[in-house]
């Protein structure tokens, strides 16, 4: 194995950038909840940095990237066994050969494993019991996330081998978390007084701050996924930024036309929708494709907001509209815009003369990821609900999660 110092330096930085996204997400969500629940929200996000990191070292990484089996990793790297001294990882040979230390790859992927379950917290805001949350994401980080990561990210995974493309986690992170969020929301039910009482965001400046941190960190999320400091990483940075910018614009235009005002929350939501949608595409498209993908993501995710009214579920901070729908849009649009000229390891999409093959594989990856994540999460959440209960007691919900779950108050 040849270690490239430039690539290693960049992925070290990218690891730190992705880590920073989780507190960014905490503030993005924290600003949107009511003031009595802001610490509860921040805590659920930050707690993932604690719990999921340890689980990733114990078994998560090994289940995702160990062994040659197509459907699940193994325990070769469990308990950090052999990673530090490993020459390479299963499947990462030939064109996929790593030029960074496998231990760095483990650390980089750990940050993805941390933020993914944290994304769910936006859907269950204001009512998910902290103990139930801890068990839920602990189990999820062992039996859901590594499996999907193995199928899609690992060159030994079956969806990867079929030719499904996911540069930085459109399926693994966003569809996966979005499907899980939908499952938990269906079980936990709506917030008390949902639909009768107004629950406006308590601190939109936090949300804008969080958006800035997410956008900044996303550079590491997407461009770091090149696992090298090269032209592809640069292309991914440009794509990521342009998609966020374009999606902000299209969201605001639609919002202004439909609801009358261009809002700061709309700018933040649009940018995040664009970042989500470009995630699977970041290293496989070029030219103006990221702008088109961003524009479509802004419109598509805004349109998806009406879903929750139609289906009467309380996805409190729109994880489904932004992450599930955005992830699906990005994964499918890649089937249209993918360009082998940008990345020889990718494929040509429909618009680049590649026909419908890639779109079909993307569709399969979307369905399989959604189906697996939704089903397993639904079962886990149901068991939790019937045993310790997912929801806080009514009184605890009334006083807020800050006091009832953590015995603290955000604003004295």
């Amino acid at each position, binding site marked *: 194995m040849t270690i490239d110092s430039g690539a290693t330096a960049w992925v070290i930085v990218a690891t730190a950038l992705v880590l920073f996204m989780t507190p960014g997400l905490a503030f993005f969500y924290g600003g949107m909840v009511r003031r009595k629940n802001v610490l509860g929200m921040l805590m659920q996000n930050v707690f993932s940095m604690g719990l999921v990191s340890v689980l990733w070292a114990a078994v998560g990484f090994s289940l995702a990237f160990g062994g040659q089996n197509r459907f699940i990793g193994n325990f070769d790297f469990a308990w950090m066994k052999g990673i530090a001294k490993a020459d390479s990882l299963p499947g990462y040979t030939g064109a996929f050969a790593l030029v960074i230390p496998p231990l760095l790859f483990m650390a980089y992927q750990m940050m993805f494993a941390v933020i993914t379950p944290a994304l769910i917290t936006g859907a269950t805001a204001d009512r998910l019991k902290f103990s139930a949350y801890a068990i839920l994401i602990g189990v999820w980080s062992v039996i859901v996330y590594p499996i999907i990561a193995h199928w899609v990210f690992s060159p030994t995974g079956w969806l990867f081998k079929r030719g499904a493309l996911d540069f930085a986690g459109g399926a693994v992170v966003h569809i996966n978390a979005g499907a899980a969020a939908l499952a938990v929301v269906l079980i936990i039910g709506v917030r008390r007084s949902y639909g009768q009482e107004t629950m406006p965001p308590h601190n939109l400046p936090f949300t804008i701050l969080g958006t800035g941190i997410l956008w900044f960190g996303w550079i590491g999320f997407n461009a770091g996924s090149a696992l090298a400091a090269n032209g592809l990483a640069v292309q991914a940075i440009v794509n990521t930024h342009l998609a966020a910018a374009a999606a902000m614009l299209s969201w605001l235009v639609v919002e202004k036309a*439909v609801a009358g005002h261009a*809002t700061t929350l709309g700018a933040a939501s649009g940018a995040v929708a664009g970042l989500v949608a470009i995630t699977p595409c970041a290293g496989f498209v070029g030219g103006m494709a990221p702008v088109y993908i961003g524009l479509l993501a802004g419109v598509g995710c805004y349109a998806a907001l009406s879903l929750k009214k139609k289906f009467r579920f309380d996805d409190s901070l729109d994880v489904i509209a932004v992450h599930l729908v955005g992830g699906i849009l990005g994964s499918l649009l890649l089937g249209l815009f993918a360009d082998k000229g940008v990345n020889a390891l990718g494929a040509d999409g429909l618009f680049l003369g590649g026909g419908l093959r890639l779109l079909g594989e993307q569709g399969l990856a979307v369905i399989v990821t959604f189906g697996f994540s939704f089903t397993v999460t639904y079962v886990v959440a149901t068991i939790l609900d019937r045993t310790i209960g997912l929801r806080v007691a009514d009184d605890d919900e009334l006083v807020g999660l800050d006091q009832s779950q953590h015995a603290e108050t955000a604003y004295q």
Partner: protein
Amino acid sequence: MKLITAIIKPFKIDDVKNALKAIGVQGMTVAEVRGFGRQGGHSETYRGAEYNIDFVPKVRLEIVVDSEQVDQVVDTIVTSAATGKIGDGKIWVSEVERMIRIRTGEEGHDAI
């Protein structure tokens, strides 16, 4: 002695304070409050969903003055707080039975 309580628009508080100081008012207490009157609330839109915000932010101003100064103070508040648009607020005057300065124990007029 009278207690003058005024509910005014928050952005008018500096104008009112300066006008009152100019006529010799020596102290006042202000609080940020929320409420509604005929102005009603307003609507805000978050991610396409419209929220009616019934309670709008106001500032409540409390001043205790000698009875003979009441009209002048009330007039000053009315002039300096008015914008002519709905939601300018209200002023009411009530009787004060006792007033004590805590530091010295002075009572009544001397405590103002």
